[in-house]
């Protein structure tokens, strides 16, 4: 400015400070608004996630419980084993349903008439007869005795006990008649109604009866499928990542492969299902609904994810380690397998777990290869028909019975628990083995 006029030098300077001061409130206000917007965005997100979790948990926690009715059951010698030989085959083939009906009738002797009796027998699940069958199979000496037993209640009774069926609704709009409610009240007064933890939910396969339906089959199906997926995709993914990152020449062909791998990661998953249907089932004649096919399809689907994560992990190993190994005379191969790969492994494992979590939650491709079937038996191998957790949820969500609502939500809780556990493991691995250079 004006060196020759020092008195005026102060004036413009003061004006600068004034201008800065005058602009400050606006600047700070802008910053505050921006921070507020950010916080609101985060809060909105959290609120959505929170309400989702809350609604699932509120709907689902009752799915882990089941109502039981205490009934005096007589293991009638005449009905079960008229010849008294305790022959296991004969015992297994006996009419246990009649036993249950007789027990219910004994509890309410004054009930008569076809429709009333049907309602009375309907209070106990059809699973109760298998409960008795299993007991006799385990202990044949029960025959001829009379026991107080907790029989599994039907889904309607269960819903009433859990408050999902409203007693105030007029009878003609309610699934459960006033008579059944009356009997239930009688039993409750006797202390013959109880809610217990529902182990069946974890061990059983699917069922038409909600009180007997479980995720055991779906969990085993998911387990076998993910095992196939892991065994196929991890070695291939790691090998592809190592080759592309460390050994492949950089030319048009490898560029093309790289672009295609990145594009494959964005292919809609149902397309992989179509591929599985067309190639694996129709061409190679693999069985439908089998974990082996599901695993192969999911392996194809997660391969790009694993390769991309693997390459990123290899890239993050500093070149100084490669130089150190090469400098003492290690070959390219030794450098990669002795030093680079072990250091990249945690990152690769993280990518792998994320990929597996992705595969665990996938539904669409499995619909194409027939894993959406109603499967009652828990699969015992890679070729048994099975469903998977997300498909089971999809199936139950489609079922009309009120009791399947809580089963659906409970299955979602289990699936989310698996996913959170897998992601937590990925985070743990990343933190535990993370290196700073």
């Amino acid at each position, binding site marked *: 400015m004006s060196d020759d006029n020092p008195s005026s030098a102060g004036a413009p300077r003061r004006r600068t400070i004034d201008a800065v001061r005058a602009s400050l409130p606006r600047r700070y206000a802008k910053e505050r608004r921006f921070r507020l917007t950010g916080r609101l965005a985060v809060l909105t997100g959290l609120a959505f996630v929170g309400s989702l979790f809350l609604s699932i948990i509120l709907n689902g926690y009752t799915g882990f419980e089941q109502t039981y009715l205490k009934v005096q059951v007589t293991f009638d010698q005449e009905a079960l084993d008229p010849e008294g030989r305790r022959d296991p085959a004969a015992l297994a083939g006996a009419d246990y349903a009649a036993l249950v009906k007789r027990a219910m009738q004994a509890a309410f002797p004054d009930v008569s008439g076809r429709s009333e009796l049907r309602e009375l027998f309907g209070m106990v699940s059809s699973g109760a007869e298998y409960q008795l069958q299993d007991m006799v199979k385990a202990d044949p000496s029960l025959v001829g005795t009379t026991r107080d037993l907790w029989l599994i209640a039907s889904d309607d009774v269960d819903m009433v006990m859990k408050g999902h069926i409203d007693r105030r609704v007029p009878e003609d709009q309610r699934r459960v008649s006033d008579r059944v409610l009356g009997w239930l009240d009688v039993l409750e007064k006797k202390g013959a109604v109880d809610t217990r933890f529902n182990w069946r939910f974890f061990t059983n396969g699917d069922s038409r009866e909600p009180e007997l339906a479980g995720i055991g089959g779906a969990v085993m199906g998911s387990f076998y499928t993910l095992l196939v997926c892991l065994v196929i995709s991890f070695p291939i993914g790691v090998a592809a990542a190592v080759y592309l990152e460390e050994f492949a020449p950089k030319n048009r062909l490898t560029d093309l492969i790289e672009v295609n791998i990145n594009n494959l990661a964005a292919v809609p998953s149902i397309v992989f299902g179509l591929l599985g249907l067309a190639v694996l089932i129709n061409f190679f004649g693999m069985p439908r609904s089998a974990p082996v096919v599901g695993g192969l399809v999911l392996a194809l689907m997660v391969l790009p994810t694993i390769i991309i994560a693997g390459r990123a992990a290899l890239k993050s190993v500093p070149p100084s*380690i490669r130089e150190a190994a090469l400098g003492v005379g290690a070959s390219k191969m030794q450098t990669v397998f*002795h030093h680079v790969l072990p250091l990249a492994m945690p990152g690769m494992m993280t990518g792998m777990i994320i990929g597996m979590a992705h595969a665990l939650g996938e539904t669409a491709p499995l619909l194409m290869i027939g894993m959406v079937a109603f499967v009652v038996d828990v699969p015992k191998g890679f070729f048994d028909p099975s469903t998977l957790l997300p498909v089971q949820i999809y199936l139950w969500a489609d079922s009309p019975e009120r009791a399947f609502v809580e089963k659906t939500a409970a299955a979602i809780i289990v699936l989310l628990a698996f996913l959170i556990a897998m992601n937590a493991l990925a985070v743990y691995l990343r933190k535990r083995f993370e290196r700073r250079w």
Partner: protein
Amino acid sequence: MNATMGTLSDAATGVAGRADAMDGLRIRNFSGTVGEVTVANPRMRTRGVDVYYGDKHAIKNVTLDIGSNEVIAMIGPSGCGKSTFLRCLNRMNDTVEGCRVTGHITLDDKDVYDRQMDPVVLRAQVGMVFQKPNPFPKPIYDNIAYGPRIHGIAASRAELDEIVESSLRRAGLWDEVKDRLDQPGTGLSGGQQQRLCIARAIAVSPEVILMDEPCSALDPIATAKIEELIDELRQNYTICIVTHSMQQAARVSQRTAYFHLGDLIEVGETTQIFTNPRHKLTEDYITGRFG
């Protein structure tokens, strides 16, 4: 640059005569390096070496001998190609995408860039210590034992122990780490890490050790230890050291080579280079006028 080259070739009279004696090695467009590029007992020889990174001409026609059991320092401003030259000597430049090396480099009269020469064999003979200490994130013992193991040098565990101990002793690190050989090498201090890297290099008994600014990441005390070590190692090894510190070059080396923009400007006895440089560019650099 052309003008500089003109004056350079005028000054390089004494060298041309010696160049004829290079048995069978072709010498192309001999650039005007000032001073004696050859020595009586060379371990490595380079003749007319050019290095290109893609289109960039990083090293221009460098001819230089590296004598047995001498420490030769490469000095020069950043980007002058001294590190590139060093990395040619054990073919570390092979790993650089788009890097092309022409000319002849020999180790004990065997062509380093020959098809027959396996870089693995070469690097077992020409070890390297890098600018940033880069121990493997493994136990100290395994850091040293890695080279002997992959080359199958040690026949038994006892022999391997022996190699590890003697390498660490020579690197002056044994007393500091003998009680924690199973702890990771990355847990040592910077100076210790660099000595560990030197021990790792000498564990495979190379003939030549290349050092690429080995002290640039270290404090003065650690630097002093490394310099002392270099002086001791000279008894058994030939050492090529790239350094940015002229004091260091003056302290540790017998010969010094000054690089400038890919040209080898001047080579000579270290004392002569630092007291009586013959080339204007060398003088400007060592007196601190640039660089």
